[in-house]
């Protein structure tokens, strides 16, 4: 039986987030003390690099290397930025860390400042997280009062200050260059890399951007050492990962497990399996940049590489379980729709290409696709990946490509048979009343659009042109007289 292993969430729910003493009792600020009094900045970078900590926000770039590049820049002004613009559908681990353990973020960012030679940090947090902002604000004030933040921390020469910046709800501001431009007061849209932020970032100065979960690992690594950290997880992906487990699963919520845990272990041992006796079909990981991993691969040990090999990615840790009632094309469409809404619109492939890709998927789900559609989808997806400016666009076709790869039959069924077996795509099925109908009139009474006709004690019929496929009749019929069958306006 796999057990959760808490590094990032070590204090969440354990301490009072507004009580600094509580945090200190859990070894809080000891790592910072150790860093400032026993370690050189280079030692800190080495420790993080040696631990093999990788960015928990998406791409998994080695944090130590990012820090090292920034540390190597000769510049008297550098910045530490925390990306708390958590935006993946369903993910809320960053919010939980800030709400439950705000001092760990402050401590980690200060350590990072010391490591790279920065004296200023920004936490870019979405304005939709008022409680997190409130608690972080209080924690910052308290830390300053106690000399743990601000000038001459722990009485040393090192000074570091933190400021909170609010994000206005643009998903693309989770992309580091967009985030930086947003802090600078510009439109939140990305710019080409290089230059990388570690060389030329906020206000043109060397800047490291790490997400909340990444930072939350730092004090633990400093205190317990890189070897301890490497003893958790897999060779290429040491440590733990927090996942937001959601969808068709009995136990939903945040979980933290060592890297290398299998999908099966998460779903069955921690998640308690799929409810209502349904079979799992896939899990979606990596949010709008990720993909759907089919049940055949549920014994995969999760790390950055294994997810990538399955056309998905770690992302920030969204993990949504899909059961047999899920339409995979509809799922791909859902994620793409999200990207189309959240694209900043700067580059052509993301602005127009994703819109066209979504329109192609819509033809699949509404029964108007033809024999060229799959080729068009593949071809356009490849160009979008090849030519988009930032990570958002470069990964936006992933949910489509991964589902095309693992569930080609579902696409084929939609296109060739005009059928959605999961009865999700409304244009591809209809409700009909069969001969067992006794004319009880219940369905007609419940129908919100009054499209069921028939006299009392006579067989009723559904006027298809008016039906909105809400399924109310199907639900309420006590005689199993309403059938859901393939077919529809475009079929």
């Amino acid at each position, binding site marked *: 039986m796999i057990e959760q292993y808490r590094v990032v969430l070590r204090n969440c729910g354990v301490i009072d987030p507004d009580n600094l003493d509580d945090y200190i009792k859990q070894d809080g600020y000891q790592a910072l003390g150790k860093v400032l009094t026993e370690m050189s900045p280079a030692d800190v970078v080495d420790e993080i690099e040696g631990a093999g900590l990788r960015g928990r926000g998406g791409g998994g770039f080695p944090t130590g290397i990012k820090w090292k590049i920034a540390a190597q820049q000769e510049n008297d002004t550098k910045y530490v930025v925390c990306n708390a613009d958590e935006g993946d559908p369903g993910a809320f681990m960053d919010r939980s860390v800030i709400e439950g353990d705000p001092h760990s973020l402050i401590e980690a960012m200060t350590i990072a400042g010391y490591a790279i030679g920065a004296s200023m940090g920004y936490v870019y947090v979405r304005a939709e997280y008022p409680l997190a902002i409130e608690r972080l604000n209080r924690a910052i004030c308290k830390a300053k009062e106690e000399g743990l933040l601000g000038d001459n921390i722990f009485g040393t020469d090192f000074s570091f200050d933190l400021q909170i910046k609010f994000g206005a709800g643009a998903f693309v501001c989770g992309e580091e260059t967009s985030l930086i431009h947003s802090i600078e007061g510009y439109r939140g849209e990305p710019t080409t890399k290089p230059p990388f932020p570690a060389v030329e970032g906020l206000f043109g100065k060397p800047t490291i951007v790490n997400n909340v979960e990444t930072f939350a690992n730092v004090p633990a690594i400093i205190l317990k050492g890189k070897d301890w950290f490497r003893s958790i997880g897999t060779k290429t992906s040491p440590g733990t990962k927090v996942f937001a487990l959601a969808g068709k699963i009995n136990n939903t919520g945040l979980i933290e497990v060592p890297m290398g845990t299998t999908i099966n272990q998460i779903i069955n041992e921690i998640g308690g399996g799929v409810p209502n006796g349904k079979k799992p079909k896939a899990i979606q990981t990596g949010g709008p940049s990720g993909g759907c991993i089919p049940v055949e691969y549920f014994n995969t040990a999760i790390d950055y590489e294994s997810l990538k090999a399955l056309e998905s990615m770690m992302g920030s840790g969204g993990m949504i379980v899909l059961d047999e009632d899920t339409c995979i094309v509809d799922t791909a469409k859902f994620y793409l729709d999200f990207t189309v809404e959240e694209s900043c619109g700067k*580059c*052509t492939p993301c602005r*127009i*290409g994703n819109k*066209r890709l979504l329109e192609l998927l819509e033809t699949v789900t509404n029964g108007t696709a033809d024999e060229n559609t799959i080729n*068009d989808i593949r071809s356009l997806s490849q160009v979008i990946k*090849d*030519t988009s400016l930032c990570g958002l666009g470069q990964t936006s076709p992933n949910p489509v490509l991964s589902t095309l790869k693992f569930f080609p039959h579902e696409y084929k069924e939609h296109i060739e048979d005009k059928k959605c077996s999961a009865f999700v795509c409304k244009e591809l099925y209809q409700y009909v009343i069969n001969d067992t109908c006794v004319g009880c009139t219940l369905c007609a009474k419940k129908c919100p659009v009054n499209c069921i006709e028939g006299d009392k004690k006579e067989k009723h019929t559904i006027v298809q042109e008016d039906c909105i496929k809400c399924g109310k009749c199907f639900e309420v019929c006590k005689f199993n007289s309403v059938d859901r069958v393939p077919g529809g306006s475009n079929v």
Partner: protein
Amino acid sequence: MSKVNLTINGVSVEVEKGTTILEAAKSLDIGIPTLCYVDLEEFNVKNKVGSCRVCVVEVDGRNNLAPSCCTPCEEGMSVVTNSARVLHARRTILQLLLSDHPKECLTCKKSGECELQDLASEYRVHEIRYEGEESSYPTDRANKSIYRDPNKCIMCRRCETACNDMQKVGVLSGTERGFDAVVDTATHRALADTHCTFCGQCVSVCPTGALTAISYNQDIIEALADPSKVVIAQTAPAVRVAIGEEFGEEPGTISTGKMVAALKKLNFDYVFDTDFAADLTIMEEAHEMLERIKTGGELPILTSCCPAWVKLLEHQFPEMVKIPSSAKSPQQMFGAVTKHYWAKKMGVDPHNVVVVSIMPCLAKKYECAREEMKCDDIPDVDFVVSTRELAVLLKESGINMSNLKEQEYDNPLGESTGAAVIFGAAGGVLEAALRTAYEWFTGNELEAVDFEMVRGIDGIRTAEVDLNGTTIRVAQASGLGNARALLNKIKKGEETFHAIEIMACPGGCINGGGQPFIHGDTSIIKKRQQALYEIDSNEEIRKSHENPMIKKLYKEWLGTPGSHEAHKYLHTEYFERERT
């Protein structure tokens, strides 16, 4: 600078570190298409936002394609610019752009000069594979100068760079997001309701028909055909050194005589020269400047010939609206003189006189419609035609300007000096004013008339001029961004000047918003500049106050510079305007 070595399509090349792949390819004469990229080298302005993605190339070892316009060359890089993958990607990008673009190329105002159209033709985009919903935005033509059709915007952001980075006006920017993203004004206001100066630099750089000039060509054709009207053309200095480009002449070709001949072929009743009014402007401005210096009036005096600059001042520096010279611009002075002096002399009812200005400028369209730009309720100027629009008028009338025999301007309002013609290049107004002010202030003859230190299209120039023992400090700024920087220094007291010339367009009117498109080649602007100075140096009379017709005008009508009569017809006032 350290060097890096790379190969492009198998050819080795050594370039300076920081060079982009696009620039390196150019040095090997390898063509890579671009749309959003533009390099206004002489003005130190680049749009390299990497948004259109048509310039992508394949870089060995890189997962995705690289935008060559903003990817620096690295040591050992191996680049392929024409692989099947690259060409497919570029063609798809073009198809995507066209899928959200009105299919009205044949009737588009930009047809024939549209960079998207050119590229679609070059890449033989014969079908649009991905069609779907098209954007729908309201158009804006509620002003006299600029027509905006955001449906044709391809988000290249060139206009934004021109408006924000170069001109520092800040009216245009990316708005909305995703498929709805478009360059627009804040809160989608009409340009007329913003602090837009109508300088037209956005129009100059727009690759498509999203930003174009508002044309009055049809009104002019009708006026020319109306026997009851006396239709007068006045031609601004900068037009004569640019119009030739529209007829295939080399940039910098001086086309004065041919242009006059062409206008006569168009049946203008009289073809006069704005240069005449430029000399007149100098009389009034130099007089005003010396008055202020002598009487301790407000300094520096700022030139007021450029309406876009005047509008910037009214919006952004309202506390300074009293500083510019009250002299009207040459275009407006010309109109006033024509309708209230020349018409009377000719026995023509000024109401029947139609003054058409041929201008390098789009703001002039706005200027002539300003409420106060009229005398006795008769507007000074009726219509403004840009250099580009003149070419259209000529071409549709079947007039090939290049083949015409040169003709002279009509008199008396065609007489001008070398001082007037240099109004078209940054620093020219200041130099012309100095030539006259020197002689008036010192009473001595100015022998060396070339004030080279104030010439230049590179932004800001400052100089000290010795007026026989009295030193005056002068400056010129071209480009509204430079103008703002200079004014801010004056506001803070960091710099003091006696006189400043400001031109809204970088380089002056030779680079006006109505000039032939340069498609990013700013060396063309230099050639136009050189041509103007060549005209000046070949003139016999090079000081405005020596223009015999100007002398006659004062003798017969105005009396002296700054007189009551001069103020009534040749001067104006400025207003504090809101900053949006």
